[in-house]
């Protein structure tokens, strides 16, 4: 049984991908496929909401890095929001806070998007 769940909802015509649970070596592949599908499906604005994410390992970070690169190729933009303290610390330690647009919550991520 997977320890990760995902769902997408539309907010102001922008797709928001919620990733919940554990994002690790076991679950990263599923998130990678979903993000790839959303980006190649023509969504040039995309928000990833991590408010229910328990933790993220380097396998999960690689997924977001790859998605960000793909999005830039498509001339789009990826925003990430609602990181818990542990996830935020992982982003900070790895330097990912410098390459991603990170917002405190979904409302702020949607603002001016």
């Amino acid at each position: 049984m997977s320890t990760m769940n995902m769902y997408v909802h539309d907010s102001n015509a922008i797709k928001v991908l919620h990733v919940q649970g554990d994002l690790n070596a076991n679950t990263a592949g599923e998130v990678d496929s979903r993000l790839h599908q959303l980006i190649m499906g023509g969504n040039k604005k995309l928000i990833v909401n991590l408010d229910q994410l328990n933790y993220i390992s380097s396998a999960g970070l690689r997924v977001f890095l790859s998605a960000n690169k793909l999005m830039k190729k498509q001339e789009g933009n990826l925003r990430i929001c609602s990181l818990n303290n542990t996830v935020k610390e992982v982003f900070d330690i790895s330097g990912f806070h410098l390459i991603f647009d990170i917002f405190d919550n979904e409302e702020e991520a949607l603002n001016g998007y």
Partner: protein
Amino acid sequence: MHITIKNSISEINFVHKCFTYFAKSKTENESAIQKLCIVIDEVLTNIITHGYADQGEHQIDITCEVGDDSLVLTFRDDGVPFNPLEMENLPPNKEVDSAELGGLGIHLMKNLVDQIEYERKNDMNWLVIGKNTT
């Protein structure tokens, strides 16, 4: 807690479940538990992906013990000698590119815990990792 797994990525989920169940009975420090879950993922992924010169089945032992206001994880594997303490840290505050991602897991591990010790004995890697829970 003492468990033995095979060298397969799919086994990591089982380790997470056992560890989380054990750790939650010993501490209420959610952040420490989350960080040790990340460490478990990094260490086991590293051993399973890079640790073996052959394609055969190997066993990895994982124990978790309660120390003085800490949780201590010990990983024991018969893979090639690998001391993560010898890996250089990623430069701080530098944009990460895919070319630099090789050491990302170890960089994370080193920065999320309070104690790391490595020893090679009896042709096995012993990695001891401690995290304060206070």
